Each structure stands twice: as C-alpha cells, then as structure tokens.
C-alpha cells in the first residue's frame, strides 16, 4: 500500500504532528515501505478467527465506589507548562 503525500499530511494532522512540506516525500516513501511489508498479513486466512482482545485470560475487575483521591491541585498542576495557580492553560479556543 503506497501512501501519497496528501495522505501522509492528513495522518500527520490527525496525529497532531507537524511535518514540513520538505519532509513529506521521504516520509511517504518510508511509511509506504513499512505498510508494504506488513501487507503480508493479508495472506493469512482469518475467516473464522475472533480477534484477540487481551492476552490476559481475565474479565474486567471492578473497584468499589469509594473516593480514594484527596484534593491535590498543586500536584496535578505542578508539571503543567504555563499552568496558573488554578488551571492548565492553552491558546484560546474559539468554538
């Protein structure tokens, strides 16, 4: 499966990773190479196979409905780039 540059640009947008115009052709070639290689899976007959959901042969454990977390705003915000004393901040969003 060959990826064109437009697709790579769209995927990069979806992943929110900046890719310059100059990098697009090389990246398209590289990603196409990887996709071409994994294409070999199409040869496997999986018509009657359930996809694996987890290797753990378990069902979902549940916890009780108990509050276990104390207020910890300072710890939560401590690593935030440009967080103020109460909030994380981001460039203003216009809805």
């Amino acid at each position, binding site marked *: 499966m060959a*990826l064109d540059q437009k*697709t*790579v640009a769209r*995927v*990069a*947008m*979806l*992943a*929110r*990773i*900046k*890719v310059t115009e100059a990098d697009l052709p090389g*990246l398209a070639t*590289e*990603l196409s*190479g*990887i*996709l071409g*290689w*994994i294409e*070999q*899976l*199409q040869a*496997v007959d*999986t018509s009657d*196979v*359930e*996809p*694996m*959901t*987890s*290797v*753990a*042969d*378990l069902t*979902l*454990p549940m*916890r009780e409905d108990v509050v276990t977390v104390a207020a*910890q705003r300072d*710890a*939560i915000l*401590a*690593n*935030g*780039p*440009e*967080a103020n004393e109460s909030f*994380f901040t*981001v*460039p203003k*969003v216009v809805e």
Partner: protein
Amino acid sequence: MTDILDLSLAAARRALADRSLSAVELVGAYAKRVEATRGLNAFITETLDHAVEAAKTADQELASGDAKPLTGVPIGIKDLFCTKGVQTTAGSAILKGFIPPYESTVTERLAAAGAISLGKLNLDEFAMGSSNITSHYGPVKSPWTRAGDDRPLVPGGSSGGSAAAVAARAVLAATGTDTGGSIRQPAAFTGIAGIKPTYGRCSRWGIVAFASSLDQAGAMARDVQDCAILLQAMAGHDPKDSTSAPLPVPDWSAALTGDIRGLKVGVPKEYRVDGTNPEILALWDQGLAWARDAGAEIVEVSLPHTQYALATYYIVAPAEASSNLARYDGVRFGQRVPGKTLDEMYENTRGAGFGAEVRRRILIGTYTLSAGYYDAYYLKAQKVRALIARDFREAFQQVDVLLTPTAPTAAFALGEKMDDPIAMYLNDVFTVPASLAGLPAMSIPAGLSSDQLPLGLHLIGRPFDEATVLRCAHVLERAAGFTARPQGY
C-alpha cells in the same frame, strides 16, 4: 575478598546479611562505578547522593535485623518507570523535566523490598527501538567491543541503559520493560540474563505506556538466580492495573533446582529460517545439546503463524502507541512548543518533542486505525495474533518450554542498520511471538560470536510458568558457563 563488584546479587545479599559487607560499602562501590562508566551514557538521571544516604539507613536495618529481601542492594531503574520526585523522561525530549508526583507500583515494591536506586537508565525513546539510538539523551554504548575493532556497539534496546549498566557492573541488577523484546534482545547483546514475565505478572501502573497489550516489566541481572530474586520483588497482583493477574507469586529462587530431567523442550521448526546466521544456529544446537545432556527431552514443534509475528507486532504496537502517546500534548506536563492556536501548539509540541522513530510509529498507528483501514490492518492483526497465541497453546500441550535463539545476530555497531527501519525491526524476530502471546520468556548469555561478542539463548514458557523458564535457564546457564567480560570494563 574478591572485588565487591564481582559479587552477584545473591552473593552480595549474603554478605550484607552476615555483615561481612556493609550497604554503605556496597552502594559506595557501585556509586563510584557509575561515575567511572559515565562514558557509556547508561544513565539519564543519577541519584547517587540519595543512594548513599539510603545505604546508611539500610545498614541500620541490617544491624537491627529488620532487613528486607533487597535491603542495601543497588539497582538501576529504566527511565520508563515513573519515580516520585525524580525526573522521568521515557528517553524523550517531550518529557524532559517531568517530575512525577507518584511512584510506579514496581519501583515502589522494589523500594519496599529495600532496594536502593542509583538512578534512571537510558532507553530508546518511549521504548521504541532495538538499539538505544532513538533516545533523546544520546545513544548508550555497549561496554562490549568486537575483537580487534573498537568501534562502539549498541547495547540493544529498548532497555539498553539497563543492559549496559548491568554488563558494566554499574548496578547489581536493573528493571527493564519488554514490549517486543526490549529486555531479552539487549540482555543477549550485552551478555547478561533478562526475563520478561507473563503479561499481567508485573503491574503496569506507573510505567510510561508504549503498547498496553504487550508492555511488561521484567528483571535484568548477571545471572538467572539474580533475575529470579529481582523479579520476585517486582511481581504480584495490583488492583490499580485491570490487566494485572490476581495470582500468587511462587518462590522463584526455590524453583532453581538444577534438575530438568524429563522436561520437554520444544524446538519450533519455523524459527530455523533460511539465511539465519550459522553462528546463531550453532549456538541453538549447542543449547539443545546441553538440555538433552541434562536429561531433557527435545521435541520439534510447529508454530505455523510465527512468520507473521513481526508484521502483526508492527501493526498492533504502533496502533496502541499512537493512542497512548496522544497525552503528550504540552498541556499538563512535559515540554510545550508554543503555537498561535491550540492545534498549532499541539503540532509544534509533538513535532519537536518526538524523535523520528516515535513520529514514524505514531503515524503508522494513526493510519492503520483510521476510517477505512481499521479492518484491514488492526483487526486483521488481532486475528493473526489470536492464531499465533493458539499455535503456542497447542505447542505447550506437547512441551514444557521452548528454546530458540534470542536475536538473529550479535550486537551491531552504532550507525549500522540505521537507515532501514524494517532491517532494525528484524532484530525482534525471535522475541516478538512470545510478546504477542503474553508468554514468559528469558534470555541467557550462552556463548560468544567469532568476534567475541555475547550471544543469547531464549526460553519461552507457558502463561504464569516463569518457574519452569527460570529452572531450565538456570541449567543451561550452568552448562554454558559464560564468564566472558566486556573488554575494558
């Protein structure tokens, strides 16, 4: 007395217990060694001052009889484990300066067992790599070099810092994590032992996630017994991880009986692929001979879907990674690169914060999950994965453990294999199948290549049967009698 650094973890523990060695001496010797081996770039963050202080407390505990299983034992922590108050980077620029306000379950258990961390060990960025060259903090150098060639070699990856530090005796043991071979392949490259337990055996809570359905913490040490001791302290059910197995942890040291008579050792015939390095094949045969000599029965088994394991892995792991790494967005932690709009900030932050390999995998993963491609890639891969797991289940009805090589080659030089991502991915050809099936697997040092580099043998066990893997590995380790040390270290 022998050099302190020559003591294995088990021996050091005995010396601490009988007070012939103090924790301050032991930790002090390793702290010096860490400084002396800085050229390897094995550590991203050293915590030597803290370790020396902790050693004093350890000595008090040892004196008062309050010692715990690892009291006073200096270890290293792969920088993928979040450590409270100590920078945790995952080898990435995007997490530079991140100080977790929490401690991962595994490292908390190690601390509770008395282990003393000397610092955070270098790794491939977000554990994505087989060479340690993708770390933002620079590549780790293996302490080994080829005979007659002093070009620096890679220690393997992604737990390359852990492997190099153990091999260079800068730590007694180290934690690693393994997603597709990240403990076993670097262990093989550096002549040490490394075990990835069954998926669910060690809690993933507090370990920076790469591919959640594959990631598993494990132990790296000089020998099998040390791995058993370290893993014992790391493993166990954790209610904070929904995929953690609610099973008791057996006494793994007690499993090392030295007796594998009657054990059925499987040889997957499909692993013997054309073009495999003859040195590797010879070592494999040697391993089988050791097992037979020790009374094991060798049985050929078939894992017909194993040839698709790598391709499966390179769909599943990047897909999960693309989602797991979405949280590195410059909002709540880590580095931010400004932008005029929110999206621009995201793109700048993630474009600059992630290295080339991480970007590549996120893009692949994003693509294979995207509308119209999910069925053809991700769903297909999870189906093939189910087949691969089924192959193993069937094989384990005939045998108790599987023996294969760990890696298709010995360590390569920095700069080799760097241009072709797929050639790099092939490093994991022997380790990935067990990862996909969630099985326990271990690499032990078993021999040297013609240019005097370590080669590993690889054992795969049934789910939650680490005991058999360790027992068999222990026997093979003794038969191999691997004593080579890296030149110059």
